[in-house]
């Protein structure tokens, strides 16, 4: 295997799953052969858009299967992938597009500001790709790349100034993937959770290409938040994920805080109980979870040991984008505390005055259109990493310092202090500045230390104007003023950052002693832009602290990250006080479970129960009330996968009549939505209805669909039904008709269809208006006709259009 195209060819006839995409509502799976086919269609798409060999195509979008299709689609026509961090702002994306001369950019609807197509640049939204690719035929012929062909240009640094484009060839990348797999040597198949950005070589090699090479499964999340990560780990049986140290630290803090609140923290030090607690914690990560792969920044020993004590491996590696990226790593069987492991096969290193120099198959050949930077990066054919290390007798590498002191945030984004310093130093009044990562208990945050020209300068104005010129990734979070005449410097006049840091930390410590920092108060202070002393326990968030709806969203988001729970911003209302909020968070109150959602009804047991009830009792009973005629059954013959049935609503007997009109195979694989307000209304519900409800759920396989609060939970439940190959029957009028005419549809149907992404089959039922109409006490026997229409597939329609089209489809079904 010499190129990424060779890797691609191995996908063709493999039927194992390669991707799972969890939207929070649906769970979409793709096999290796799907990946093969969709990538070929993507190649066809690009070639229709005029993209040719050697053209650059940027991808500025979140991790998802479509990211992978785009990646291979680009490579298959010989074009070059230019990945852009999804978290970065439009300015940076535009800079990279311009520098690389990209002809096309794949972007995302989840970005506030998009890049518009113009002259030489075309664009598409990644979320539209599934519709755009559907009608296309896979490209007939794709290129055979050579190892020396450029596959990617990955831009590093340059949050402000001149990003450098690292040219990586097919040979660079694939050799690193193979060497890394051999080196780490995981003995069995793994499920990976991929949340770090694929635009970074770390995630691309470790979390994407290596699993593809090994035949593993990769799970992507549409929404990356603490709860979706934990659900993903557990539900998908994840064995491993990549993580940056800051993420591992945030996770550790949450676990410790939870133990603390339960009074269990001290038990972590008692030998026997330690094991029990560790087991309980491990359980939260699912039954398969084994290891984190750590990279991007140095892993503190204490963090390594914390996870090791819990029974998880933390396999740390070391690399740079320029080396595709891995230079050294620990292995599955052996992890050494404080070491980044041994060097990979095919990579050679040597130390020059402790600086690591690298040579080998995965080392890049230069920066794109930047020979000056390229020249500076190499010495006698060796790439100068700028990092310092020691190597022990067994060849284990210990990193001793990094020249650039990169700050890595929790989502794995590199922030380069020198670039922020450049911005600061240009601002009037700033003599010099020193930017470093300062840990205030939640991992490193960007901290600026200013050396001012005079004392009466407004420092917050300086920071504000700097932040305006900085990418959203690289915002300065804290600052302090350096009171001495100058920073401590080396003989070559470089600032000795570690000395600056030592001083800041010692000052911090003395402050901490008289004021234990309250996280909730400090978050509220941060969001409301008030000083902490102003915030009292009985302060009302909205009226006293001026938290408006935007700040509320901001605060809730911070709280979610900090406490790792799901919160809705409606938890804060007009009267919520600080102490209310504190109680709510301390209780970690789980959001109430929605009633009336029983998934087991659609498993074997539920199906057998219904078949039995129908056979002995319900079907014979139904013959007393109606003679049934079904029409349009041929429309159901070619259904692939689940659908949503929608029908007009005239009578309580509609549901059983439609069920019995369906072929058996579909009948027992269909669940029906009932209106929650009917069974459980606020102003009391007849006792008989309450009693009937559980029987109805079991015998007719129904679930509750509330219109208001709880709608999204029911929606998620419907997603699980569909994933479980179950159809859904909905009466979109919501209530039975009074005059026999089709009423307006509820607005929610449009959202349901859009989120579930399955076809809609219209059904019309006739005759029930005579048999058992609204208001009648008892049914009167008669003939009932059920007509099934053709399935309708929706793509980019709005919710109202979906409703209009579906409603007309029912109206068009006539008894003739």
């Amino acid at each position, binding site marked *: 295997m010499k190129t990424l195209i060779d890797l691609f060819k191995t996908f063709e006839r493999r039927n194992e799953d390669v991707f799972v995409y969890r939207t929070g509502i649906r769970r979409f799976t793709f096999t290796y052969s799907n990946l093969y086919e969709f990538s070929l269609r993507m190649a066809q798409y690009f070639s229709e858009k005029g993209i040719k060999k050697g053209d650059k195509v940027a991808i500025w979008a979140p991790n998802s299967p479509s990211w992978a299709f785009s990646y291979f689609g680009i490579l298959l026509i010989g074009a070059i992938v230019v990945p852009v961090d999804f978290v970065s702002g439009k300015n940076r994306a535009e800079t990279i597009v311009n520098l690389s001369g990209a002809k096309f950019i794949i972007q995302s609807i*989840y970005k*506030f*500001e998009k890049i518009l197509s113009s002259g030489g640049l075309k664009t598409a*939204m990644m*979320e539209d790709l599934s519709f755009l690719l559907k009608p296309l035929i896979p490209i007939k012929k794709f290129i055979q790349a050579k190892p020396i062909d450029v596959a990617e240009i990955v831009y590093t640094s340059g949050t402000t100034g001149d990003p450098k484009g690292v040219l990586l060839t097919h040979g660079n990348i694939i050799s690193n993937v193979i060497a890394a797999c051999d080196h780490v040597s995981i003995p069995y198949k793994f499920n990976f959770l991929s949340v770090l950005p694929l635009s970074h070589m770390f995630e691309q090699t470790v979390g994407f290409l290596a699993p593809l090479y090994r035949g593993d499964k990769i799970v992507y999340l549409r929404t990356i938040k603490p709860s979706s990560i934990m659900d993903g780990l557990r539900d998908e049986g994840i064995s491993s994920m990549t993580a940056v140290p800051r993420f591992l630290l945030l996770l550790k803090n949450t676990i410790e805080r939870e133990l603390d609140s339960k009074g269990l923290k001290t038990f972590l030090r008692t030998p026997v109980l330690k094991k029990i607690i560790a087991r309980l914690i491990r359980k939260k990560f699912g039954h398969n979870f084994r290891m984190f792969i750590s990279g991007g920044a140095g892993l503190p020993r204490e963090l390594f040991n914390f996870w090791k004590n819990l029974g998880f491996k933390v396999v740390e590696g070391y690399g740079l984008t320029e080396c595709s990226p891995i230079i050294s790593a620990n292995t599955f069987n052996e992890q050494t505390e404080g070491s980044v492991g041994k060097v990979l096969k095919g990579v050679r290193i040597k130390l020059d005055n402790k600086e690591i120099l690298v040579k080998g198959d995965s080392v890049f050949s230069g920066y794109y259109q930047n020979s000056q930077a390229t020249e500076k990066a190499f010495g006698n054919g060796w790439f100068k990493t700028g990092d310092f290390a020691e190597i022990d007798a067994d060849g284990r590498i210990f990193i001793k310092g990094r020249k650039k002191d990169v700050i890595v945030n929790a989502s794995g984004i590199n922030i380069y202090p020198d670039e922020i310093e450049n911005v600061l130093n240009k601002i009037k009044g700033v003599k010099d500045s020193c930017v470093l990562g300062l840990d205030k208990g939640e991992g490193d945050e960007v901290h600026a230390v200013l050396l001012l020209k005079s004392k009466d300068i407004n420092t917050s104005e300086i920071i504000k104007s700097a932040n305006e010129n900085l990418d959203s990734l690289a915002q300065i979070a804290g600052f302090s003023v350096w009171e001495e005449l100058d920073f401590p410097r080396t003989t070559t006049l470089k600032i000795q950052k570690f000395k600056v840091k030592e001083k800041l930390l010692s000052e911090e410590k003395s402050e901490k002693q008289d004021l234990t920092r309250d996280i909730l108060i400090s978050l509220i202070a941060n969001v409301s832009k008030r000083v902490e002393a102003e915030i009292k326990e009985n302060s009302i968030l909205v009226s006293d602290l001026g938290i408006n709806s935007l700040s509320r969203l901001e605060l809730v*988001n911070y709280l979610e990250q900090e406490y790792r729970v799901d919160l809705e911003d409606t938890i804060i209302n007009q009267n919520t006080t600080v102490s209310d909020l504190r109680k709510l968070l301390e209780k970690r109150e789980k959001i109430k479970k929605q009633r009336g959602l029983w998934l087991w009804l659609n498993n074997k047991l539920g199906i057998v129960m219904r078949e039995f009830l129908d056979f002995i009792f319900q079907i014979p009973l139904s013959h007393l009330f109606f003679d049934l005629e079904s029409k349009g059954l041929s429309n159901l013959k070619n259904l692939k996968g689940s659908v949503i049935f929608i029908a007009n609503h005239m009578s309580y007997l509609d549901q059983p009549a439609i069920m019995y009109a369906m072929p058996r195979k579909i009948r027992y694989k269909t669940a029906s939505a009932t209106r929650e307000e009917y069974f459980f209304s606020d102003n009391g519900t007849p006792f008989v209805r309450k009693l009937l409800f559980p029987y109805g759920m079991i015998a007719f396989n129904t679930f509750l669909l509330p219109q*208001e609060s709880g709608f*999204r939970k029911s929606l998620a439940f419907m997603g699980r039904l569909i994933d479980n190959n179950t159809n859904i029957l909905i009466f979109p009028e919501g209530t039975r008709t009074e005059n026999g005419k089709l009423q307006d549809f509820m607005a929610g149907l449009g*959202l349901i269809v859009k989120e579930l992404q399955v076809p809609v089959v219209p059904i019309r039922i006739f005759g029930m208006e005579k048999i058992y109409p609204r208001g009648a006490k008892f049914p009167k026997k008669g003939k009932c006709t059920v007509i099934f229409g053709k399935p309708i597939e929706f793509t*980019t329609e709005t919710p109202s259009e979906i409703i209009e089209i579906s409603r007309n489809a029912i109206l068009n079904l006539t008894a003739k």
Partner: protein
Amino acid sequence: MLGIDLVYLPEFEKKLKTFSLERIFLPHELSQNKSKESLVGIFAAKEAFFKAIGKKEDWLSVWIEKNKYGKPEIKTLLFDNKKIEVSISHAGEYVIAIVMIND
């Protein structure tokens, strides 16, 4: 019932950095509104809607669609059979929306 909301675009943009669009907008709102101005208009309309009904509900229980003439219309899960009218206007860095609900 009447509600009004005025949004200052730079503030919205700044706050947005900390939370994701999915908290406020439904996928179809995001895919049909490519410019940031129109997204902020939707935000203002939702906020005005909550003011009109007098309480804060889930952002995703209400959404905006454009009719064939491009006029925005508000749809909601919270009730049916009520007439809701909305109007949105932009000027420089400000966006304003007004919502009226009739039984």
